[in-house]
């Protein structure tokens, strides 16, 4: 199976790899997937007091498409409000990266990671 140019680009030059302090109250951490299934994504969002995502970092264990999906998402969420970020759909990710059918689950996982990170962030604000 040949990967698309965009997947290769994200895979070879992943954006925003790294970690924030997960105990920081402005940071939401989402960890989705399972090692047994072959992919685990960790997405962290740093949210401003105004509810805007200022920065994002990720780490991913998984195939090239999983790495590219999470790398892409860190670019997309930056500058968005929480509500806007929640509107990112897996189909947008799959389309942007031209993922083949067998890799659609990678984009689903990336969408789940955004939701999980925002949920974590919201939990911390209560």
């Amino acid at each position, binding site marked *: *199976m040949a990967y698309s140019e965009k997947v290769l680009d994200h895979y070879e030059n992943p954006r925003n790899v790294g970690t924030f302090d997960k105990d920081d109250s402005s940071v939401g951490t989402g960890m989705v997937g399972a*090692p047994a299934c*072959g992919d685990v994504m*960790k997405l962290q969002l740093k949210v401003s007091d105004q509810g805007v995502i200022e920065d994002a970092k990720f780490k991913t264990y998984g195939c090239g498409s999983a790495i590219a999906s999470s790398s892409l998402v860190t670019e997309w969420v930056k500058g968005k409000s929480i509500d806007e970020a929640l509107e990112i759909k897996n189909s947008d990710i799959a389309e942007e990266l031209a993922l083949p059918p067998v890799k659609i689950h990678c984009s689903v996982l990336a969408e789940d990671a955004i939701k999980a990170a925002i949920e974590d962030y919201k939990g911390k604000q209560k």
Partner: protein
Amino acid sequence: MKKPIYMDNSATTPCDPRVAEKLCQHLTTEGVYGNPASRSHEYGWLADEAAEAGRAHVAALIGASLKEIVWTSGATESDNLALKGAAHFYKKKGNHLITVKTEHKAILDTCRQLEREGFEITYLDPKENGRLDLTVLEAAIKPETILVSVMHVNNEIGVIQDMAAIGKLTREKGILLHCDAAQSAGKISIDVNEMNVDLLSLSAHKIYGPKGIGALYVRRKPRVRLEAQIHGGGHERGMRSGTLATHQIVGMGEAFRIAKEEMASEAERIGKLRDKLLQGLQDIEEVYVNGDMGHRIPGNLNISFNYVEGESLIMALKDVAVSSGSACTSASLEPSYVLRALGRSDELAHSSIRFTIGRFTTEEEIDYTIELVKGKIGKLRELSPLWDMYKEGIDLNSVQWAAH
């Protein structure tokens, strides 16, 4: 050094130039292109002669006689013919067959088909090192057992089964023994009589011959009977119909001739390269070799790099052609069933890479591969949340993962 470096010699091998040359003589217009079944003219005779010389080389490598070799289109067909052919012929004698969970799909899928037809199949678990426990095999044998099928060398982990011991047991019990030798022929010695094997599958393209040709050894003393699976003109003494591809037979013959001649020295050279690769990779933290190292063909190294997913590693190693799991199943995302049968965790199975070194692998290529893998593992682990957790001392098994 030419890139990509090919280290996937268990998936397929390039034709040896000597094989290609011989084969081409039978492809081109100047060559012998008759139908070997044409009994009436020289074109047919020459083709038949060439085919018979090929048969002799194949027979010689496994200690068989000419009349015990049946040509097929490949090891998959040989496996199908052996299992279905024997099961159908001997079904009045019994309906039970025994095999192992780590067999090639050609065996497992054929067994599933036989199950649908009403046969009973026992799938044995190998030991953790990939080898079959003889007491487990013996315990599985029933009065209705007609055939045991065990592969000589596993395609993923390269582990060698003790065929002679298995053959001794099956012969004592009066049960047929089939052996898939696609991965062992030309790499380690095979003697069908020492092993007491009754049926043995061979492939050409795994030992520097062409694709699309294989053979099945069918014992004549004591005689093993098979029901044909492909019907027609009655080629191959009625066991397998269809026009023989002379150039492929000639190619397979030449590949087997070379293998017999060079096997010993080649095994030594390849073994050294493999050991060098292993040593180089063992410097990396958290690596696990899959399968027994003591009973393994020289060219195979199957190794799991913990906390790195296999497919992304393959992508990172794009200058080295390797595989994760077997090529036949690599279109699916399931972790290798072979490694799971060995009791490997899904994580380690997902993290496995198979390097298979061959006749044309050089030391320079091994050195390059070691350095490349080291670098890429480092990079991917930096990306891996699991690696962080490992470094923080978190037990991954204690984490509640949301399975999806």
